[in-house]
């Protein structure tokens, strides 16, 4: 095991500066500096604030990851970095750092896809990914269903949201309910004291036969309900019923995708995978359908550097050629491009 390569992963696609270190598929360190506190009062991530924070946090975060792993920077065998998708200016800070580390250490550089990294991270916890597996990524920026024959080589998009991402819907509904940003965890908590069947909110695109999602109608329906029922509404019931509508559609479509492609392993990743009701309902429906469910622990579901390092390790293992020092940061990198 000791001869497996040590990969340092750098993630700066949004507000978190994430540094992860792996040896093969063993996690050695996962360190995060977040600028979320600076963004919260703006009700969303401010790109320039995030980019400034990445520059300031990068070196200290790398150093603390190295210390946690008990390594010196010269022990690193390869650098992996999120090349996209994400906020352009934020990505660029990570990509510049990655190139400098690769150049300074004389080691290969891998520019990787953020979404594929969300899939790859699960190996650090649950071992090698079944080939193929089905992945559902649900975060503040993405809601996608992916067929993954091999995370180092091929990722196929089966469907995605046509409007808001699932996490975005949580955040927008939280705002309507007067809960702080980011709203997902607050709705999750409030919903524990409410009933998911109290209010029948719409399930957009649930039965349209596609593997796409739509959450903007649901968000509007909740806002309308709140305006109409103002003072007399039960916050826990609204939160629980909204949450139920989201996770009902997500799990239904994920299992429909498994059935359609005859896949028996479902992986859920992204920040919304931290949602307790999504985990419970997905488990219930997977059990009923004979599908094995894999969900990384919450800390690995949200953006982090370990996921980037994990995908880098897959690419090294598969003998993929390293990236050039000329690679750009690509804010709209398509999911089908696993590395650049």
């Amino acid at each position, binding site marked *: 095991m000791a001869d497996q390569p040590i990969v340092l992963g750098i993630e700066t696609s949004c507000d978190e500066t994430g540094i992860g270190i792996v040896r093969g598929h063993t996690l050695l360190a996962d360190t995060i500096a977040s600028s979320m506190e600076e963004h919260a009062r703006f009700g969303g991530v401010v790109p*320039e604030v995030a980019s400034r924070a990445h520059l300031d946090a990068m070196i200290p975060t790398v150093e603390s990851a190295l210390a946690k792993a008990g390594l010196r920077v010269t022990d690193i065998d390869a650098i992996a970095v999120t090349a996209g998708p994400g906020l352009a200016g934020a990505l660029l800070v990570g990509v*510049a750092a990655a190139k400098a580390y690769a*150049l*300074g*250490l004389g080691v290969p550089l891998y520019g990787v896809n953020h979404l594929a990294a969300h899939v790859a991270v699960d190996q650090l916890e649950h071992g090698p990914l079944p080939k193929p597996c089905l992945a559902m990524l649900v975060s503040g920026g993405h809601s996608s269903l992916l067929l993954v024959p091999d995370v180092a080589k091929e990722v196929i998009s089966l469907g995605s949201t046509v409007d808001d991402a699932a996490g975005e819907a949580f955040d927008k509904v939280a705002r*309507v309910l007067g809960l702080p940003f980011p709203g997902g965890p607050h709705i999750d908590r409030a919903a524990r004291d409410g009933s998911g069947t109290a209010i029948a909110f719409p399930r957009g695109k649930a039965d349209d036969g596609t593997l796409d999602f739509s959450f903007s109608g649901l968000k509007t329906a909740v806002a309308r309900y709140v305006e*109409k029922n103002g003072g007399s509404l039960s916050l826990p019931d609204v939160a629980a019923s909204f949450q139920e509508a989201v996770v009902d559609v997500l799990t239904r479509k994920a299992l429909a995708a498994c059935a359609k492609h005859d896949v028996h392993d479902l992986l859920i990743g992204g920040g919304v995978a931290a949602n307790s009701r999504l985990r419970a309902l997905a488990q219930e429906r997977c059990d009923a359908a004979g599908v094995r469910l894999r969900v990384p622990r919450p800390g690995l579901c949200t953006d982090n550097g370990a996921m980037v390092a994990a995908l880098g390790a897959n690419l090294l293992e598969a003998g993929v050629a390293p990236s050039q020092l*000329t690679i750009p940061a690509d804010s709209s990198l398509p999911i089908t491009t696993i590395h650049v």
Partner: protein
Amino acid sequence: MLFVLVLAFDTATPAVTAALHDGTRVLAESTTVDARRHGELLAPAIESVLTEAGASLREVTAVVAGAGPGPYTGLRVGLMTARALGSTLGIPAYGVCTLDALAYATGSSEPFVVVTDARRKELFWARYGDARTRLDGPRVARPHDVPGGLPIVGIRLYEEIIGAVTGPEHPSAGALAGLAAEQLAGLTPEQAAAAAGLPEGRIDSEEAAQGRAVLGPPAPIYLRRPDAQIPGAPKKVTA
């Protein structure tokens, strides 16, 4: 004499420029003007000056980045690169005000003003007594508010308002490296280490930028705070 090899680069203007300097002269220099590709061009430019000079990164004794002011996205590429190289190579990383490098390149012994593009219809400017002496700035201002009555060096913009601009249009890493090497030669090793080791804060106001020494830590000179609006109440969805 101490072995000196300064690697310098600047990404605070449309030019992506890198150079290697041995304390006496510029060994190699590369400059490409492309305002949108700093992130793609810088690392290859560093490789190419090393190759041209027949030097290896491990021989470099100090790394210097233009600290701005300049458009933020490009500016951060140079500073992030300097910090990461300094940290992996175990050598000091410095920041030098980009306008100081432009001023130094003029070799002038007379007073003048340096301007670079600040976008949003503004200019970054600083006023110098001679090529080495910054008297005021860096500041950010509308073209009308750039001081008149002195020769102006730098970007050819708003000449109908500020008058004719002469001299180098963009900074060169050769001049940046030369200025840094000159500064380093005047410092004891302890002083040099202290200059790089200052806290790496950001400079986001003109006041903070005024007293800045020529050679400092690789901290960005932004001059402006991020603009962001604190949102009001959610808008109504029903009529």
